[in-house]
C-alpha cells in the first residue's frame, strides 16, 4: 500500500525543510504580501509600543525609539497618569466619558431608528424612479466632508437676532417661537444637535443595508399576510420588521462595540466656548491634552483606557451575539 505514513522523524524533517522550500517556491506571493505585512506591523503594532508612555512621566518630546536608544528615557511614573486622568481640571475626564457615551447612544438610537424608518418607507414605494431619486438625493450628504457639513449646519442653525439662519427664520415667521433659540451656544442642545446633524448626513447611507435586507424577505410572506387580512401597517409590523431583525441585531451589537469611538470631528468643529463642557469626547480630550499641551503620558493613558474598554465591549458584544445565535463578528 502506498501512501503509508513515513516515520515521524523523517516526516518532521521533510516538513521543516519543506516550509522554507515551499516559501521559496511561492516567492511571488511572498513578494506581494510581505511588504504590506511589514507595513502593518510597523503602523498598527508599532504604536502599541507607545502604550508604555502611559506609565512614564512624559510631558514633552520623549518616549520615542530614538530617545530610548539614546538612553534619554523618561522617568517611570507607574499608574500616576491614570490617576491624573481623574483629577479635577479644566476638562474632566469623567465628563468626557459621559459626553462620549451620551453622544454615542443618541447617535445610535437616532441613526438606527431613522435608517429603519426610511428603509421601510422606501421599501413601500412602488415606483422605481421615485425610489431611485430619493436614494440618490439622500446618499449625497454622506460624501460631503464633515467640515462642509458642519459649515452648512452652522449657517442653518445660526441664531443671531438680526440675521437668523433659515431654521430660526422659519420658526420665527411661523410664529412657533417668539425668539430664535440659540442652538449652537446652548449646552443643552449640543448632543441633540450632533445627533441631528449625524442623521442628516448618514441616514441615506444607513438605509442601504436595511433595504438590502428587506429585499431578502420572502414575498410569499407578504402575500400570506395580506390573505390573512393584514393591512399595510400590520404587514410592516409583522413581516418586514421581523425580517430585518438579524441585520438589526448585528448592527446594533457592532455599534455597541464601538460605543466609545464616537470620534471627534464633529465635536471639534461644532463646539463653541459655551458648549465645551458637553462637547469634549475622549478622542478630543486626547487631542487637546496630547497634541496641544504635549502631555503625552496623560493622553496615552486616556487612549489606553478607551482601547481597553473598547476591547471589552467588542468581546462582550461578540459573546452576546453568539449566545443569541446570530453570526459572530469574529
Amino acid at each position, binding site marked *: 500500500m502506498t501512501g503509508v505514513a513515513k516515520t515521524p522523524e523523517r516526516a518532521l524533517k521533510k516538513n521543516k525543510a519543506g516550509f522554507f522550500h515551499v*516559501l521559496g517556491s*511561492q516567492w511571488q*506571493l*511572498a513578494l506581494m*504580501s510581505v511588504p504590506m*505585512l511589514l507595513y502593518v*506591523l510597523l503602523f498598527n*503594532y508599532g504604536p*502599541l*509600543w*507607545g*502604550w508604555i*508612555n502611559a506609565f512614564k512621566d512624559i510631558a514633552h518630546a520623549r*518616549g520615542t525609539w530614538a530617545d530610548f536608544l539614546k538612553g534619554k528615557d523618561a522617568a517611570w511614573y507607574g499608574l500616576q497618569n491614570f490617576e491624573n486622568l481623574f483629577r479635577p481640571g479644566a476638562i474632566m475626564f469623567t465628563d468626557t466619558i459621559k459626553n462620549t457615551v451620551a453622544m454615542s447612544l443618541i447617535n445610535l438610537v437616532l441613526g438606527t431608528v431613522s435608517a429603519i424608518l426610511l428603509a421601510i418607507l422606501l421599501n*413601500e*414605494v*412602488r415606483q422605481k424612479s*421615485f425610489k431611485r431619486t*430619493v436614494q*440618490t*438625493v439622500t*446618499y449625497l450628504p454622506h*460624501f460631503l*466632508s464633515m*467640515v*462642509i457639513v458642519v*459649515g*452648512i*449646519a452652522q*449657517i*442653518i442653525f445660526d441664531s*443671531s437676532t*438680526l440675521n437668523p439662519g*433659515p431654521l430660526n427664520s422659519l420658526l420665527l*415667521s411661523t*410664529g412657533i417661537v417668539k425668539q430664535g433659540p440659540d442652538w449652537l451656544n446652548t449646552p443643552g442642545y449640543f448632543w441633540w444637535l450632533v445627533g441631528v446633524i449625524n442623521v442628516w448626513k448618514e441616514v441615506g*447611507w*444607513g438605509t*442601504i*443595508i436595511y433595504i*438590502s*435586507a428587506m*429585499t*431578502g424577505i420572502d*414575498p410569499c410572506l407578504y*402575500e400570506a399576510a395580506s390573505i390573512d387580512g393584514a*393591512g*399595510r401597517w400590520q404587514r410592516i409590523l409583522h413581516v418586514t420588521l421581523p425580517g430585518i431583525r438579524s441585520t438589526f441585531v448585528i448592527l446594533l451589537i*457592532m455599534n455597541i462595540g464601538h460605543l466609545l469611538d464616537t470620534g471627534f470631528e464633529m465635536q471639534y468643529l461644532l463646539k463653541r466656548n459655551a458648549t465645551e463642557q458637553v462637547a469634549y469626547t475622549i*478622542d478630543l480630550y*486626547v*487631542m487637546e491634552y*496630547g497634541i496641544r499641551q504635549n502631555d*503625552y503620558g496623560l493622553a*496615552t493613558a486616556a*487612549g*489606553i483606557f*478607551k*482601547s481597553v474598554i473598547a476591547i471589552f465591549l*467588542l468581546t462582550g458584544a461578540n459573546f452576546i451575539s453568539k449566545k443569541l445565535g446570530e453570526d459572530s463578528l469574529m
Partner: protein
Amino acid sequence: MSKKIEMAVQAGPREDTRGLKEIPETLRRHARLSPKQMRISMTIATVVILVLAALMIVSQSRTTDILKNNESAVLLKEAMHAERIELTNKLALTDRYGTDTINGKRLFVLQEIGQQNGDEANKLYWLIYCNEDEAKEYEKTLKNYKQLILLDQKEEKGLYVAVARATELDESIAKLASKGITAHFIALDGLDGEPDLTGVSEEDQETLAAMLNELTVYNFGYDSFQSVRLSRGTQAQISSKKDERNTLRLYRIILIAVLIVLALILARQLKAENRHEADKEKYRRNRIILLVIAFALLCGIVTLSAMINQKGEELVVISELTAPTDQAKSPTEAAEGTKLTDEELEGKFVYRMGKGKNEKVYSVTVPEPMGGLGFWRAVYYVALVLLIVFCISLLYFFRYEHDLGFPVFNTVLLVLLMVITLYPVLNTVAYSFNDGTDAARAGIHIWPRVFSTDSYKEVMTTSLYKAAGISAAKTIITTFMNLFWTGMLAFALSRREYVLRKFITLVMVITMYVNAGLIPNFLLVSRTLGLRDTFWVYIIPTMFSCFNMIVLRTYIMALPNELVESGRIDGAGDFRIYWQIIFPLCAPVLATVALFVAVGAWNSWFDTMMYNLKTPDLYSLQYYLMIKVQTAGQTSNLANGTVDAANELARQSVSSRTVQCATTVVTALPILIIYPFLQRYFVTGMALGSVKG
C-alpha cells in the same frame, strides 16, 4: 456601521432576486404599479414640491434697487444692544466696532455711544491722540477691549478710538502717566461743541483739530432718532419707500392663486379616478380621503394668507445732501423734507441692507414676526392645527392597501426628506452667490437675492488653488497606492496554498479590533519617522487598509479556482496571474474600494491639523476650508495686536458669511460633480447586495 454597509455593497450577486415570475398571480397584480396609482402619486409629489418651493420663495424677501444715481447714502448705525447689530462685513475688533468707506470718507461705526446719561459705569468711547507706541502702551492697560482702532493719522501721531469705562480710563491714564506718556483723551460725544484740546502741543492742535473736523459721528439712541451729523455741516435727508411691500404682497397673492388652481386640478383628477371605482366600499373611502386632502390644502392656503398680512419692512433711504451747511441739525431738522415723522422713526433700528450702484441702502425698521396681528394670528394658528390634524388622520387609511392614504403619506414624507436634505446645500449655494452686505440680512433661502460673484473672487486665491492641488494629489496617489497593495495582498492571501496565509491574515484581522490610539500613532509618524511637515505624511500612513483587503480577499476567493489553475497550467507565475486574470475580474469591487478610499482621502482634514500645521503650503483643501469657516467670524484673532488690521479688514467688502459659503461650495464642488457618475458603483452593489456576516 459604514464598514458593514461597504461590505454589503461589495458582496457578490444574490441567488434569488425578487423576480416577478416567481410571485403568484394575485400578489403580482397587487405589486405591479397600476397606472392610476402612478399618476396620482406623481401628481401629489409634484404638488408637494411646488408648494414647498412656493413657500420658500414667498418667504424670501426682496429688495429693489431703489436709489437713483444722484442720491448717495450714508451708513447709519444704531447704538445700544449689540445683539441687534450685525455688521458682519466690517468687524475689526470685538463685535462692537465697524468701519466703512463712503464717498471716500472713512466711517467708523461705534455702538453704545453716549451712554453718559448719569451712569458713569457705562462704557464710553474715547478718542486718543497719540503715536503708535503710546497706543500700544495704552492697549496694555486695557482689560476688556484690548485694542484701539486707528481713525486717522497725520505724520506720526494718530487718532485712535477706544472703549473704556470712565473709571477704567482714569486708571489707564494713571498707568500711562507713570510711564511718562500723556496721550490726549477726548470723549466722543464731546465733539458736539468745541473739543477740549488743552494739553495738546501747539503744532499738534492744528492737526488734531483738522482730523476732528473730518470726523463723522453717528449717534442713535435705542428709543429715539438722535442727531445725524455726517460731517461738520452735511445734512442728511430721510425718505421712505414703501413700494417694496406692495410688490411682495402681489407676488405672494399670485402664488397663492396658483396653489389654489393646482389644488383644484388635483381634486378633479382624484374625483375622476374615483368615479370609475367599482368597489362601493372603496369609493366611499376614497371620497373621504379626497375631502381630507382638500381640507388640508385649504388649511395650508389659509395659513399662507395669514402670513401675508404681516407687516413687513419699510425701506428708508437715507441720503447725504449735497449742499453742506454749517449747522448741525437736530433730529427734527434732519427729518425735515422727509416723509417720515419723528414718531414714525421712533423705536426703529437701522441696519444696512443692500447696495445700489454707488450707494448703499439702509432700512429703518424691524421686521415684525407674526406677533401682534390679532385676528389673522388666530386664523393662522387654527389653520395650522387643523392642517396637522388632518394630515395625521390620513394614517387611518393606511390599513387599506390599495387606497390612496398611504401612498400620499409616503410620497409626502419622502419628498419632505429630500427637501430637508437638499435645502441646506442649496441655501449655502444661494448665499455664496449673494452680495456680501445684503447677506447680512435674513431671508435668503434657495436663491440669491442680490447676485454677485464677489465672494468667489475673494475666495479664489492662490492658497486655495494650492490647497486644492495638494488635496487632489493626495487623493490620486493614495487611491493608486491603496488599489495596488490591497489587490496584491488580497490575491496572495486568497491562495490557500500560501504558507504565510494564516499568519498574515491573523495579523491583519487583529488590527481591526485593536487600535493603538491617537498619541502613539502621532508619535510614530511625526517623531520616529519624521514625516511631520511633509507631503508624504498624507500618503504613507494611509496607504493600506486591512478592512478593504479582507473584503477584496473574500471576493477573490469567490471567484472560480479554475481561472487560476488554467493560468498555472499555462505556466504563468503568480504576478502574471494576478495582473492579467484576477485584477481585471475584480474591477467592480476595486472600483468601489477606490471610491471609498478617494472620498476618504479627499475629505480628510485631521491629518493636516495634526502634522502639517506649520506649513501652509501643504494644507489640504478641507483644512483650508475649516480655517476659513471657523475663523471668519473671529476676526479679532487675526487682528491681534496690529492696529493696521482694522484698516485691512475695512477694505474687505464681502461678508464673512458669503465667503464661508463660497469656500464651502468650492470645496464641495468636485464631489458634487463626480457624484452622479459614482451612482453606478454603489447602486449596483446595493441592487445585488446582501449582508455578508
